[in-house]
């Protein structure tokens, strides 16, 4: 055991046999893989045997919280899960702001949870310190995320950490997610379906233990100074007021203030980005919706809805079922396009899909979530539609990455076209497209290159790499811009550090962290001596192992890491620096840059023997 941060135990639950065990956390693994995200990847490496289908009982779920989770350090509630995801078919990480779940899990005495097998009947896992039980879930099976979460809070009180699936997860919809405390989404790519396939409705947790830190004096010094920095941030009030709307003003502030009932925050977060809103008038008057951001509630408007109130109603419906909104919009629009082009007879799609109609889309949300009629086909995502209606339909599909609908790019929801690290990362993260900035400066609106080194230092990028990311002017005096592929390597490294400690992945709050501060906080909390190069190297080890786990599953660059053709059209992505349309040649270079910066083979993306040896992964 260390002096603090870790609870010291891994909970191991076999749903098939009902066996529940706990193992002492292997501290030698902690030394090598930090904790949280990193240790979850490492435990998944052992737990996952390659070659099994995502929805088979042989696909385990491994979860974890980092050593900072449960402390008072800002925004340290993050929860991670790793499993094979049904849509991409890859081993993917899933992450969520842990709301109350993260600290409750730690206070119950655990850092990690492994779930294996499949229960005969629907169950939920109830964790109350050492009392861990699989409980009959018949009373909540078939109920929405809201109903399920409310039922647990009614029975066990708030704040009980509740991680639950809705009907979409139960029916193993390929794009079903799980939700933590009904507002934090966990697992694009079908994490909810993996839970559903296991007949696992929910995990609920309460803990009475405490999270201790190893060096209280050092902790206090570091945290007090850090909290002062956040308090003094001139835009803090604006962030607290608007949340993600400050970055993406997709809803007028006046309108947001009119509907907002309460800002909500994960435990320990000083910013808060989640919302409870109430529709003030119209046919849905009085409807209260909870969301991981008001930006999400505006997504239907971005997709063409005229009335924002209808949009909120639709998102509340999708969240209730536990459906990923990006995939839902992508798949329904794809099917409508196929009908319009005569590839699906109209009589098979009744009522017709109308992209901006609440009534139509609510009907299809229900059919998909419950797998009714043609909804059964749509529930298998783009892959299911193409399988049913033939390979010729692919030409009408939007840009797809690993059979998923990217959130940004031509035809996608989010209205930006700059090709930064997060956009390239949609292709190069084995899990597939997801919204996650990894602390990169390209997340926000275009910035001058001069400000980048400041962010590089924050992310812990070694000075020696700066010139590779920002090569400056060439011999002819031409500015060479920003090497996105190289920066993405360090963005993934920084994301890994944050996630392994348990710090939120949202740029609005992790912007306050500095990699060197992370090393000092880790040391103060856990008592494990570490410096920034040591932390960085462990993060390199973790992300490379994540890649190796996927290579073991058959991941190949030639099949999986290709930018969609639709990204290269005139109205597609633009180079972050030149603002010229993205071209295939430069995108190939970005991918090779990325591999090379990691020490992976530039043509294949397979980690070289030398790199594996250096990272102790041989």
């Amino acid at each position, binding site marked *: 055991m260390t002096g603090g941060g870790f609870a010291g135990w891994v909970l191991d639950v076999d749903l098939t046999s009902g066996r529940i065990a706990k193992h002492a956390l292997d501290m030698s693994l902690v030394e090598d893989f930090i904790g949280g995200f990193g240790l979850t990847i490492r435990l998944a490496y052992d737990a996952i045997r390659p070659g099994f289908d995502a929805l088979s009982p042989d696909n385990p779920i491994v979860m974890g919280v980092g050593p900072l989770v449960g402390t*008072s350090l800002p925004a340290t509630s993050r929860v991670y899960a790793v499993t094979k995801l049904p849509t991409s078919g890859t081993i993917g990480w899933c992450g969520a702001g842990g709301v109350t779940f993260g600290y409750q899990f730690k206070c119950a005495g655990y850092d990690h949870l492994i779930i294996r097998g499949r229960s005969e009947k629907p169950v939920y896992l109830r964790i109350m310190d050492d009392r861990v039980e699989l409980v009959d879930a018949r009373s909540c099976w078939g109920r929405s995320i809201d109903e399920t979460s409310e039922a647990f809070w009614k029975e066990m009180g708030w704040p009980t950490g509740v991680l639950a699936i809705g009907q979409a997860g139960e029916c193993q919809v390929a794009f079903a997610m799980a939700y933590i405390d009904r507002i934090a989404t966990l697992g694009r790519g079908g994490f909810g379906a993996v839970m559903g396939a296991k007949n696992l409705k929910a995990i609920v947790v309460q803990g009475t233990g405490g999270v201790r830190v190893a060096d209280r004096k050092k902790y206090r010094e570091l945290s007090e100074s850090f909290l002062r920095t956040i308090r003094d941030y001139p835009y803090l009030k604006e962030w607290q007021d608007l949340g993600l709307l400050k970055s993406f003003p997709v809803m007028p502030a006046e309108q947001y203030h009119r509907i907002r009932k309460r800002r909500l*925050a994960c435990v320990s977060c000083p910013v808060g980005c989640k919302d409870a809103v109430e529709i003030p008038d119209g046919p849905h008057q009085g409807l209260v919706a909870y969301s991981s951001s008001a930006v999400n509630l505006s997504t239907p408007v971005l997709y063409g809805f005229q009335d924002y109130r209808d949009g909120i109603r639709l998102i509340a419906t999708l969240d209730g079922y536990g459906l990923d909104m990006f995939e839902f919009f992508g798949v329904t629009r794809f099917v409508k396009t196929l009908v319009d082009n005569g590839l699906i007879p109209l009589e098979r799609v009744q009522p017709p899909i109308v992209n901006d109609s609440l009534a139509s889309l609510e009907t299809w949300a229900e059919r998909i979530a419950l797998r009714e009629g043609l909804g059964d086909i749509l529930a298998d995502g783009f892959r299911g539609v193409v399988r049913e209606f033939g390979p010729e339909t692919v030409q009408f599909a939007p840009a797809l990455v690993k059979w998923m609908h990217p959130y940004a790019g031509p035809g996608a929801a989010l209205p930006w076209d700059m090709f930064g690290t997060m956009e390239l990362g949609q292709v190069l993260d084995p899990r597939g497209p997801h919204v996650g900035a990894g602390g990169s400066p390209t997340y926000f609106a275009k910035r001058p290159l001069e400000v980048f080194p400041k962010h590089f230092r924050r992310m812990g990028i070694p000075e020696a790499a700066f010139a590779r990311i920002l090569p400056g002017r060439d011999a002819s005096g031409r500015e060479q811009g920003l090497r996105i592929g190289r920066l993405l390597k360090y963005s993934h490294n920084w994301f890994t550090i944050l996630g392994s400690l348990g710090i939120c992945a949202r740029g609005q709050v992790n912007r306050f962290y500095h990699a060197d501060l992370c090393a000092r906080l880790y040391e103060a909390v856990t008592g494990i001596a570490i410096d920034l190069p040591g932390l960085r190297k462990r993060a390199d080890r973790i992300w490379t192992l994540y890649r190796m786990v996927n290579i073991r599953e058959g991941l190949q660059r030639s099949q999986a890491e290709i930018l969609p053709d639709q990204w290269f059209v005139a109205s597609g992505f633009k180079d972050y620096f030149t603002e010229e349309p993205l071209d295939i040649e430069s995108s190939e270079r970005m991918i090779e840059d990325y591999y090379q910066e990691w020490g992976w083979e530039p043509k294949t993306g397979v980690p070289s023997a030398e790199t594996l040896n250096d990272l102790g992964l041989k």
Partner: protein
Amino acid sequence: MGKYEILVDEMRCTGCLRCQLACSDLYIKAFNPGRARIRVVMSGVDCRIEFTDDCTECGVCADHCFFGTLQKTERRAAP
């Protein structure tokens, strides 16, 4: 009666529980919001904030509140 009066504006509370984290750390030398002397109870969009009988009104909860929910003012000595 403690040194400070704690002023509460429940409308501003986000449920971040920073107050409970700070309180538990001060009094039990470990973080667990459930063992704090202040309790935030969220129910849907409603919020209720309570103090346990052993609260000393030390004000550490207000020091750690970022949202203006809790503020402390020094009690005046009786004339």
